[in-house]
């Protein structure tokens, strides 16, 4: 396949960037999107140019580091697929592909397609854990949890923290990420004890970096793990309860 790429190039956080055009020739349809970028980079290096900086780690859709905007959609055109899992066969020979980093004040650009997603870490630090030792793997089997509840918690736990929800949201809101992280703990007995403290503090940090949700549902369609906005409704309900319950301790 031969493709024309428009890639956002930006040398550092505080310098202006712009799109640069590259011809990606002789790309296998079975290559992943990142392998295609690797090839382009290899050729750039041989020509003595700076390679395109992009984040990646697992390349199997579980670490969440590889997200970029592909033709105006986070992680590209295929639903439920992270950039690293996207194959070039989803494109047609001769296509032009525009690649841009996430845009959000909470995700400043570090270089080219790489953004700093550390506010997500801060949200997790604010309560995305259980404060007591819940035991070893086998101890999980001592607590009975209905199958439906376990499944729902698992759906939420599928979040890989890639930031596509923020990137997709016209308001730059991080509701889908935060609500998924909350639900995966809050739904289970081990996490339930700290449900309201956790909800209040994680939402607090979220609001200090990101925008406010207007229920457009764009995040849900961009999520590579197809996490439902039902979790956002759950978070909204818990948050008001949390504010009421925690009102004296504030």
């Amino acid at each position, binding site marked *: 396949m031969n493709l024309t790429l428009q890639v*956002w190039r930006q040398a550092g956080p505080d310098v202006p960037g712009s799109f640069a055009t590259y011809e990606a020739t002789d790309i296998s349809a079975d290559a992943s999107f990142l392998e295609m970028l690797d090839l382009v980079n290899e050729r750039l290096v041989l020509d003595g140019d700076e390679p395109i900086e992009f984040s990646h780690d697992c390349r199997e859709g579980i670490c969440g580091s590889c997200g970029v905007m592909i033709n105006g959609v986070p992680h590209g055109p295929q639903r439920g697929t992270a950039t690293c899992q996207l194959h070039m066969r989803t494109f047609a020979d001769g296509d032009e592909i525009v690649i841009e980093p996430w845009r959000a004040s909470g995700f400043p650009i570090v270089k080219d397609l790489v953004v700093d997603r550390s506010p997500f870490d801060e949200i997790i630090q604010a309560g995305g854990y259980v404060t007591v030792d819940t035991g070893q793997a086998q101890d999980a089997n001592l607590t009975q949890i209905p199958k439906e509840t376990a499944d729902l918690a698992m759906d939420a736990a599928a979040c890989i923290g890639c930031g596509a929800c923020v990137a997709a949201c016209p308001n730059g809101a991080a509701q889908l990420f935060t609500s998924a992280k909350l639900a995966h703990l809050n739904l289970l007995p081990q996490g339930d004890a700290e449900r309201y403290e956790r909800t209040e503090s994680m939402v607090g940090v979220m*609001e200090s970096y990101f925008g406010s949700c207007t229920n*457009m*549902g764009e995040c849900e369609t961009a999520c590579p793990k197809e996490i439902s906005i039902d979790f956002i409704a759950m978070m909204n*309900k818990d948050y008001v309860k949390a504010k*009421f319950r925690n009102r004296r301790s504030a």
Partner: protein
Amino acid sequence: MATASPATTATPPPQAPGQVPWIVQLYGTALGKKYAMAISGILGLGYIVAHMVGNLKMYFGAESIDGYSEWLREGLLYPILPHTVMLWILRLGLIAALVVHVHAAYALTVMNRRARPTGYQSERHYVAADFASRTMRWTGVIVLLFIAFHLADLTWGVEAVNPAWEEGAAYANLVASLSRPPVAAFYLLANLALGLHIYHGIWSLFQTLGWNNRRFNSYRRSLAIGVTVVVIGGNLSFPIAVLTGVVG
């Protein structure tokens, strides 16, 4: 290497929580403002539905709607409350709801602008965000301007807006106003904007208030469409009826 630091979107809260009532504290947060918008939106919706239904009386002639408007002013809960008292309670409630709704919308819009100071430099393709949801701010502003015009036109009878206005003659006033084609056109346009606004609003409020149940979620869309079609259909019929001579 220079490091980028993520910018914050929050307006720092006025200090000393704990001394502030929890409901005020809640309104200080973005999620709390969304709650306030949903609840004030429900109040507004209730009013809009009642307003449309009441106006259907114009199809039964001048006496019917004039009598109804007289009752709204003098007869609501009379004699439990003195004349016009209940009307003013409702009016103050609506004004409060409108103020909260607009203030919260403004504050959240500012926050959202801060959350993405530099937009996408390439074309953005939306998958789920529909026209109604992306134009809430604009349809909201149109409705707000319309409310001001509508009050001047038919409630206060401001000379410059509706020169033929007379106290107590609801039917004659609305016919005089809506038989002017530009005014009728503005009523039609404003109601289309209102339709887009309540269509997204009705769906959205369930999400905001956390009234989410997987068994009923699929009905939220239908409810939003149904209410919107009925209310806006009724409202659109009024200027059309006057223009075509059905009413008047």
